[in-house]
């Protein structure tokens, strides 16, 4: 009998890291399906290329760093899938590649790979591309336009509602087309209904928790109501702020990244609220029409602080609770 010594416990939950990542991949593939429906096969090629580049970079970096690589955790695939979805469908393939390489080689690998990266790789990759190729990244093809796979895009590219809001205007799209994603914007971030379905799916699978996206969206909503950028005023501003740009997408997929967010529930909520404030600050005073990735990168650097503050509060609650339990003064029903 060949026995090995194992520490307790001797049974394990069937859920694996791969399963967590696969959930994210499943949710993201819905968005690719929608992008395919609106823009033809080009988004799929972008997605596949981005995934391939991210995987390649991840493997290379791990080999160079002589770490043990486990291809079956799909983290690089998730990063590769998120990146193109934040960009317009018409963007040059090379920009996607550059963003992917930056995400893995600069934002992920030097920190120690999966689980150790301080900054969200996808947010970092997108921010880098936004700084370098702002024009290409923030002009969008009209919705419902089938794009050619190769060659230049001959149709006029337009700006998105986020840009209109940035200028202080009011986007003229009715609520139905906003819900269905029939307005120019990042190819994965315009389908509000599909995004909400993704959120519900991920929450029901236990991959992300309600607390974080909800408190994030609530903060943004309250701030949008209090300080509207457009002349449309209060409630319309809330709808436009939530639906425009990468806000919903980022709130689900970037903020839902477990590695670069705090661990404890209360830290998560505090983090999400602060992120919401930060996003709105970037939107009001930032240079670009979309500041969520920059806001998240800034917030990522503060995760450790949020976690430690959470631990401090948790220790207080824990000790107080144990003291009352020891005294057992409160009668409780068994």
């Amino acid at each position: 009998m060949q026995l090995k010594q194992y520490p307790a416990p001797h049974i394990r939950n069937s859920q694996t890291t791969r399963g967590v990542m696969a959930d994210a991949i499943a949710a993201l593939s819905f968005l690719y399906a929608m992008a395919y429906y609106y823009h033809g096969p080009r988004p799929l090629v972008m997605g596949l290329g981005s995934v391939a580049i991210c995987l390649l970079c991840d493997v290379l970096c791990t080999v160079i760093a002589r770490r043990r690589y486990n291809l079956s955790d799909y983290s690089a695939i998730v990063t590769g899938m998120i990146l193109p979805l934040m960009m317009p469908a018409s963007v040059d393939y090379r920009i996607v590649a550059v963003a992917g390489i930056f995400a893995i080689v600069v934002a992920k690998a030097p920190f120690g790979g999966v689980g150790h990266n301080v900054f969200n790789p996808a947010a970092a990759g997108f921010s880098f591309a936004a700084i370098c190729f702002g024009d290409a990244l923030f002009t969008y093809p009209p919705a419902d336009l089938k794009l050619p796979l190769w060659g230049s895009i001959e149709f006029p590219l337009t700006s998105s509602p986020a840009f209109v809001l940035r200028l202080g205007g009011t986007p003229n799209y009715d609520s139905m087309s906003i819900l269905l994603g029939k307005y120019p914007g990042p190819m994965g971030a315009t389908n509000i209904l599909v995004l909400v379905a993704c959120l519900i799916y991920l929450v029901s699978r236990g991959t992300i928790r309600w607390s974080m996206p909800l408190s994030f969206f609530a903060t943004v909503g309250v701030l949008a109501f209090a300080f509207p950028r457009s002349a449309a005023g209060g409630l319309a501003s809330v709808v436009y702020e939530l639906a425009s740009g990468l806000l919903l997408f980022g709130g689900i997929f970037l903020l839902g990244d477990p590695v670069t967010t705090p661990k404890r529930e209360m830290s998560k909520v505090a983090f999400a609220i602060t992120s919401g404030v930060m996003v709105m600050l970037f939107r009001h005073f930032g240079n670009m029409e979309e500041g969520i990735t920059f806001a998240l990168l800034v917030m990522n650097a503060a995760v450790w602080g949020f976690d430690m503050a959470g631990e401090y509060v948790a220790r207080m609650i824990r000790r107080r609770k144990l003291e009352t339990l020891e005294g057992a003064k409160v009668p409780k029903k068994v």
Partner: protein
Amino acid sequence: MPMFSKGIVLSQHKEPAFSKPILRFVHPQTDSLKLDLKKLTVQSKQEAIIEIARLARIVDERDGKLLYRKLKKCQGKAKIVIADALDDEPYVSSRIAPLLQMGEEVADGLDLCCTVAGCQEKSIMVYKMITDLETRIPRTIQKIKVMRVRGGYPASQERRLSHLGDTPRLVVGVGALIHLARAVYQQKQQSTVFLTVAGNCVSSPMNLEVSLGMTVMQVLERCGLSQQPTRVVCGGSMTGVSIMDTENTLVTHTTRAILAFRENQRDAHYNCIGCGRCEQVCPSGLNPMYIHRFVQTHYYKGFSLFDPQLCIGCGTCSYICPSKLEVSSSVAKAKAYVLGDSADTQEESEPATNSSKPEQGKPAPKQSPRPKEARQSPEDDLLKDLPNAQ
């Protein structure tokens, strides 16, 4: 915000072992050992029972303490006697099965304990979240009320008993009660222990009454192995110890189960992705993820914020971890470090026991030295193992 998890729901896997009759697998020589009660000279009934428990060498399987010591310390003091049949770990049914099948002996044992403690109130504690049983657990067993402990694993009885407040109580395992009844009414010495044999390598899982000192291999062969196990566990599936040498490991008083598993999956080398599930499920409200990371990086200074000494060793953090990391052993390491470090400054250091559960309610030794504890008389030692009663 839920700081303290109500536990996790585990599929219990208690069948088919639970419903089968308990078989005896005993050594004929030790089984026939009788007590010599002729020289017994005692004043009262209470002392007679304690003396018999001492002569019969009965050990309470729930904490590994000698029963007569527990009885002596509670003599005439406890207000309620509780039979502990909490089998909250999957596969293990070595307390609840004897409770249902030998209810009379358990009731006799409870009566004897009540006589010693000088009280009338008695109760039986059973874990409620067992859903896969073929037999129903009755509401009363031998007219004794069955108390159902709700919530997921770990069913930490210390916390669930908090409704009793400071009531002094005596909690005895079901096995010890049966052996006490046998010692008093049949003059039998404790030579056996109840244990569950299960796991995916055991061809006929069952509950056995096994002689003390049998080897693990003998017990496994008694139930048959359908395939070669890669992991043999002494104790529960969540907290047990995996053993290497089955020929030389013996069944002891506190062995509650022998489990044999075979896993075909290869060890995956995932990194921690910081999902925070371990923090979500920790019944003590700790953050095992950071403790694990600190232990991995040998950063021992940072533990004061994380209270690893409050760990009850339930293993839920490792169970839930999607990256299959050994989180709970890291926390145990950190706990040992913190307790070992502060042992010099403490008046009495923590005794090493098999079950770490009693330390649940302990305050952090370094930060808040409690004069109340230092003044405790040794008589309260027993009650101390029920931390709520402190």
